[in-house]
């Protein structure tokens, strides 16, 4: 039931249960049960069991390189950093999920924060070049919002400076640029199978690489087993994916294409409804990119829209819509990085601006085209009634 008054102005909230950002696709119950009946029959619960092997095989085909499964994306990044032998300093965006930068800490590496390109939301060769010094051993490149930008310049730059290129592709499963899969960018790509992502393994991660030596290293680092390949590795950890996670991910993998299409329909609905609203700029993939549309991401120009991003967020939250501010603030402004590396304050203008302006809306299993229509309508109402909303918010404690 749609109301004609915003909840923040006294209307009835659009949703009684909060609607979250996140894909949350799930398999049908009978398939889940079959999968787990099999696990219980085999009593093979973890330690690179048959379902993990199957998943790695299927993913290798899907991604067209070697795919190695791990506990989650963050541990995947930590293992990948070690497998590439990175040390000293690594160039990384601040406009990313904190785990990207935190992985560097666990691997004993200092971040060099790099600003992003305002349109792609990704670090660019132009921003990276001036940051390259003797101590820098690699670049940790992040692809956001389920798409991929053109990375040829960055790959060339990395090669010219003999830097390793690690790709945080946690958002970018099933994405490609000019027909090249997201797993083929740089030396190693890491994906997340967190339930909010397009491929759901409950939690989970994939380390993908075309380099056999690196793959051997990864396989050794991710566990303490003695029966596996014994590449000489600097350090090891338990980052094993269980059969339960792999079982879920296998069921999810068969639906990835279908779910991307479903995302796209919702995305297009938002796009059609919101694109002409003054002060709204919708994040779009490059023409050459085929993305997974797992985020609908847009920017608010408060002068033209009438409300700041945070005001709009408050409006939506009072409607039961848990829109998200990925990422606010940027990692360089988060504790303890703000204190450890104060030199980056006010040096990353694009990052700081995006952190203040971007917002993501729910897309995925919990949503439909109707959801997208209803949310869009509320955003248009917020724009139309901007001055009322502003006054109301000013009166709120």
């Amino acid at each position: 039931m749609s109301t004609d008054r915003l909840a923040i102005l006294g209307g009835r909230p659009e949703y009684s249960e909060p609607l979250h950002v996140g894909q949350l696709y799930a398999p049908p119950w009978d398939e889940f049960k079959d999968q787990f009946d099999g696990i219980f029959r085999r009593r093979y619960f973890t330690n690179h069991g048959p379902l993990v092997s199957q998943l790695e095989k299927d993913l290798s085909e899907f991604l067209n390189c070697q795919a190695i499964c791990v506990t989650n994306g963050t541990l995947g990044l930590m293992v990948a950093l070690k497998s590439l032998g990175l040390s000293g300093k690594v160039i990384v965006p601040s406009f990313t999920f904190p785990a990207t930068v935190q992985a560097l800490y666990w691997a004993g590496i200092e971040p060099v924060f790099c600003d992003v390109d305002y349109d792609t939301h990704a670090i660019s060769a132009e921003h990276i070049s001036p940051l390259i010094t003797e101590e820098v051993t690699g670049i940790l490149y992040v692809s956001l919002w389920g798409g991929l930008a053109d990375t040829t310049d960055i790959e060339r730059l990395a090669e010219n400076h003999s830097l390793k290129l690690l790709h945080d592709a946690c958002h970018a499963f099933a994405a490609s640029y000019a027909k090249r899969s997201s797993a083929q960018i740089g030396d190693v790509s890491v994906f997340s199978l967190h339930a909010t992502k397009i491929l759901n393994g409950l939690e989970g991660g994939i380390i993908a690489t075309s380099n056999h030596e690196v793959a051997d290293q990864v396989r050794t680092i991710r566990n303490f087993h003695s029966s596996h390949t014994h590449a000489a590795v600097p350090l090891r950890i338990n980052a094993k994916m269980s059969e339960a996670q792999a079982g879920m991910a296998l069921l999810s993998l068969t639906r990835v294409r279908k779910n991307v299409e479903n995302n796209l329909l919702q995305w297009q609905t938002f796009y059609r409804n919101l694109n002409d609203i003054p002060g709204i700029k919708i994040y779009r993939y490059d023409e050459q990119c085929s993305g997974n549309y797992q985020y609908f991401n847009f920017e608010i120009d408060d002068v033209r829209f009438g409300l700041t991003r945070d005001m709009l967020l408050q409006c939506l939250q009072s409607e039961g819509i848990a829109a998200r501010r990925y990422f606010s603030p940027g990692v360089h402004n988060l504790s303890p990085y703000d204190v450890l590396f104060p030199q980056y304050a006010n040096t990353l203008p694009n990052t700081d601006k995006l952190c203040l302006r971007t917002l993501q809306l729910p897309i995925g299993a919990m949503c439909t085209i109707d959801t997208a229509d209803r949310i869009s309508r509320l955003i248009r109402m917020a724009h139309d009634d901007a001055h009322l909303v502003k006054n109301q918010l000013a009166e709120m404690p």
Partner: protein
Amino acid sequence: MVKRVVSDLACFGGKALFHSVKPIGQLSLPNIERFYEISLEILTSRRFTNNGPVVHELEQRLCQTHAVEHCITFANASVAIISVLDTLAKHKSGEVIMPAFTYIGLPHLAKWASQTPRFCDVDPATHVIDPERVNAAIGESTSCILAVHQVNAPCNIERLQQIAKENDIPLVFDSVHAIFASYLGKPFGSFGACEIFSLHATKILNGFEGGYVTTNDSNLASALRTKRNFGFTDEGHTASIGINGKLNEVHAAMALACLDDIPSILDRNKRRVAHYADAFANIPGIRWVAYSEVSMMPNYEFALLHLSEDWPLSRNDVVRIIRIENALARGYYEHTDQLAKYFSKDFCAHDLPVTCRLAREFIQMPVGELVSNDDIERLAELFLFIYRNASEIKRRLDQSQNVN
């Protein structure tokens, strides 16, 4: 297959004694109905992870079981240990005092937390870290003491606590192998600054993969809760550097659905260990690592076999032979040489004479839900056969080695 002649041994081409492998882990099944009941709710609500209701319930149940105030679950015990060391370490890059006669991963975990492992030798009778050596190892750069309970004996808890207190150094217990055991009538879980347990499928409580920390320190508990979730304090803001250490809901459901069966698991373990002793009683030169039942109520997780010095075949040969029979025994904590390779700077074999000796002595025999009394009797027959035919076996092993 019963062995009549030496060539019946699988290592010489015979048929393996066991049709399916006999592992060394618990590998228990959940209450299947309960598991599916919780899982259906997970799939229906689409709450798959991120500190959900099933994790909450599991944490509460574990608090009760361990008689402790806080339980913080993790993706596995390794990530829990890294997080604990990172939180408690007194120095940014100091030393963590730990035993080497234990899980091979521990020194690696210290390194992930920017700490250097400082190994201490163990007591020859109980195999737990020697408190006086801990005391002697403490110095300017000591960050933490990571003491590990053995399955057969607890650490000298009082003495370690005294040393930790006198030197103002946090004391952490790796209680992975003391899970659901108790010390002087008190369940493990509330000793030291915190204790760490594993939910790995081979352990007594099966959560596929998983781990948890128990503590009565509410500051530590809240720091760990924050740390396992990227350091987030609210949406978008972090208090500290964190990690993804979250236990997902299906793994938590598994552990919950296994929890009610723990008393009978412990009972079965005790009988299994007793049956090993009975079945092997008439084989010369064999003894079992005794469970210290004076101060501890053990969980009887392992059956650890010791071959006398004059046994006609070496420990390693015996392990190799029986593994090919599909009994996946292994040398108990036999990896000190690998430690030397990894941590050569920190590892000094002559500082750890007891560890180095113990690492050559024991066989960790198959245990867990897949090992029946009948299997144990067949293993006893196999050992007797090996004992009686040792000289021929040895000759043929030497031959085949020369061929290779």
